[in-house]
């Protein structure tokens, strides 16, 4: 067996929250102002808590040359931290990582791009920043421009480019990097469908040429397609390793078992009623955060410290940040009779189009907002079944799935239609 090209031994990374913000007169004054604003009902960004956060804990794994490894995990699992350490952007707190090849990191597209420089100048700049030698860049220059499809504009300043062109150019440069180890972090989430396919194609090309790739993504389908092995991370530790299908299966199963722990979510230290848990369900056998469009859905919020005039507002955002719906309990004739209760939002039909959504909740007392949970849960909506047939979504982004049926009215006598 050849020597591993990456070895991670007992790698740990701790972040100290809040400690570096020295308490000063300025800070105290600011929190005083914040309290005043609260009373007036303003929404405020979360206040950092102090304490330690272990982003990675005793991580161990090896990667052999030429392998394509996918790294999956939820938010806060430690994926980005791992990539940052392997890219030498930050240092581990303990443990070590050994790299036996040059690393090219794609943690963001267009690092170092300057709007006043031309496409040509930016290609050289970006390539050099990413570690390419000037000779190599010159050699690949034509290929890069062709891949990005920007031949005509190569000598105009990048500030005139459309955002799509910028992304294509940035990815094109990165695609022709020639490191032995390529680390890619979710950058394939940019650009349109056809370009994404091109990028994935290029990545599998690169993989076929024997480069080692570390690929982090939320797109489980892409991981399944590209990777021969996967590592699952949760809360900084590895919970599964092996074939992608197996790791993905474990990951989804774990989602079902977990309830979102709201202590972590509640970054906003306000006053008033608190939400201590959220249960999302579509009947027995729901995989918690994977929902079906068109079926009934319940969102049950457990409250503590509630008062008679308390209310909740559930906001649903799609992954472009568009507010799809805002549902307020204050519009219904609810009577809050005790301080501990479960408020459930009952939908007869979940009318969301397939996709990923973020749920945010505001807690109100007497129409004044007391708390705001910006990201209380994320859900993934899949096409529902209708009459037991699986509905296919044709990929066009839509916001809602309106209840409907198709009818046909024939305008001329029935006849056999040539096929």
């Amino acid at each position, binding site marked *: 067996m050849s020597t591993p090209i990456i070895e991670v031994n007992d790698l740990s990374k701790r972040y100290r929250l809040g400690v570096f913000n020295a308490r000063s007169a300025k800070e105290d004054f600011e929190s005083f102002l914040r309290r005043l604003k609260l009373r007036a009902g303003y929404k405020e960004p979360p206040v950092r808590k102090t304490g330690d956060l272990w982003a990675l804990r005793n991580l161990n794994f090896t990667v052999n040359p030429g392998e394509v490894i996918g790294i999956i995990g939820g938010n806060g699992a430690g994926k980005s931290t791992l990539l940052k350490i392997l890219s030498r952007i*930050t240092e581990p*707190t303990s443990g070590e990582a050994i790299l036996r090849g040059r690393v090219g990191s794609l*943690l963001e597209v267009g690092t170092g791009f300057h709007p006043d*420089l031309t496409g040509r100048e930016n290609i050289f700049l970006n390539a050099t920043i990413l570690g390419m030698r000037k000779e190599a860049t010159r050699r690949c220059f034509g290929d890069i421009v062709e891949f990005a499809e920007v031949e005509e504009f190569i000598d105009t300043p990048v500030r005139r480019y459309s955002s799509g062109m910028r992304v294509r150019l940035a990815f094109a440069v990165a695609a022709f990097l020639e490191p032995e180890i390529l680390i890619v972090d979710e950058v394939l989430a940019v650009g349109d469908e056809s370009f994404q396919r091109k990028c994935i194609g290029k990545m599998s090309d690169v993989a076929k040429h024997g480069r080692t790739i570390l690929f982090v993504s939320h797109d489980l389908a892409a991981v399944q397609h590209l990777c021969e092995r996967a590592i699952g991370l949760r809360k900084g530790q590895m919970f599964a390793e092996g074939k992608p299908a197996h790791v993905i299966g474990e990951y989804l199963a774990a989602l079902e078992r977990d309830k979102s722990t709201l202590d972590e979510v509640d970054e906003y230290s306000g006053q008033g009623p608190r939400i201590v848990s959220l249960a999302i369900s579509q009947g027995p056998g729901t995989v918690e955060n994977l929902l079906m469009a068109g079926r009934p859905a319940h969102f049950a919020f457990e409250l503590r410290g509630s008062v008679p005039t308390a209310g909740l507002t559930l906001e649903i955002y799609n992954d472009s940040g568009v507010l799809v719906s805002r549902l307020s309990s204050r519009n219904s004739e609810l009577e809050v009779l005790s301080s501990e209760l479960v408020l459930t939002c009952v939908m007869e039909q979940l009318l969301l189009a397939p996709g990923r959504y973020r749920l945010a909740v505001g807690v109100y007392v007497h129409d004044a907002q007391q708390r705001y949970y910006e990201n209380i849960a994320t859900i993934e909506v899949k096409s529902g079944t209708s009459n037991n047939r699986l509905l296919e979504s044709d990929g066009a982004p839509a916001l809602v799935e309106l209840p409907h049926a198709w009818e046909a009215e024939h305008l001329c006598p029935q006849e056999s239609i040539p096929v």
Partner: protein
Amino acid sequence: MEPATNSLYEIRIRPDQSWLNPDIRGLIEYRDLLVMLVRRDFVLKFKQTVLGPAWYLLQPLLTTVVFTIVFNQVARLPTDGLPPTLFYLGGITIWNFFLQNLNSTSNTLLNNESLYGKVYFPRLIVPLAITCNHLVTFAIQLTTLIVFIIFFKLRGSHFDAHPIAALLLTPCLLAQTAALSLALGLSLSCFTVKYRDLTQLVGFLLQIWMYATPVIYPASRFPEHLRWIMYLNPVGPIVENFRGLFLGVSSVTPLQTVTSVALTSVLFLIGLALFRRTERTFVDLI
């Protein structure tokens, strides 16, 4: 085509690496990037401003005019017997280099978050690129100074220029100034990344510092009880020596020069160590 895994190439990533190591090998490996950054800043300067290149010449000249009027004519500060224009221009040329280099590098970590947080390269490359940039500016302004010296000489002014000594020793003086401004800039950048309002404090302090340096007055004007300033302020001997090389008059003692160099060396080591230590984890702070 299989890329060969170079079995000799191995990087161990672990905590507690040495501070003082300036990673020369890394800097050499990334020399292309250094050149590219220097070039980029120049190209941008030309593209983004109308005056751009002319500003290199205008700024010291305008300042000299103002100084001459205010400090020489109105306040009647002497200039060691030298023509005031040359006196001020000389001081400004070297002081500018120190000032601007310090100012620019003191925000390195803060200003380049987007770069440092996304890709690895030896962090020192950016401040080095800034310094190279300022060296080129200095070269341009030095040429202006020389032109003026020649002009004045031709008009018959009396002062001793030491062209050979100037040629040999200016690089040393320049190296010392670069080291000093870089040292202070690197140290400050470690703090400005945490406490952003320090940047304003730095600007303010630099203004005061100019008054403690013999730029608008000659060192010979220091009264006996204030001579110690020339020992404590490493830029003082630098400026005096610079004027001494090009204009023939300086009242700096060898001891003061030696102190200045020693102080520069110590500050440089401190600055380097501090920067190397901070660069490894400052990304966690942003």
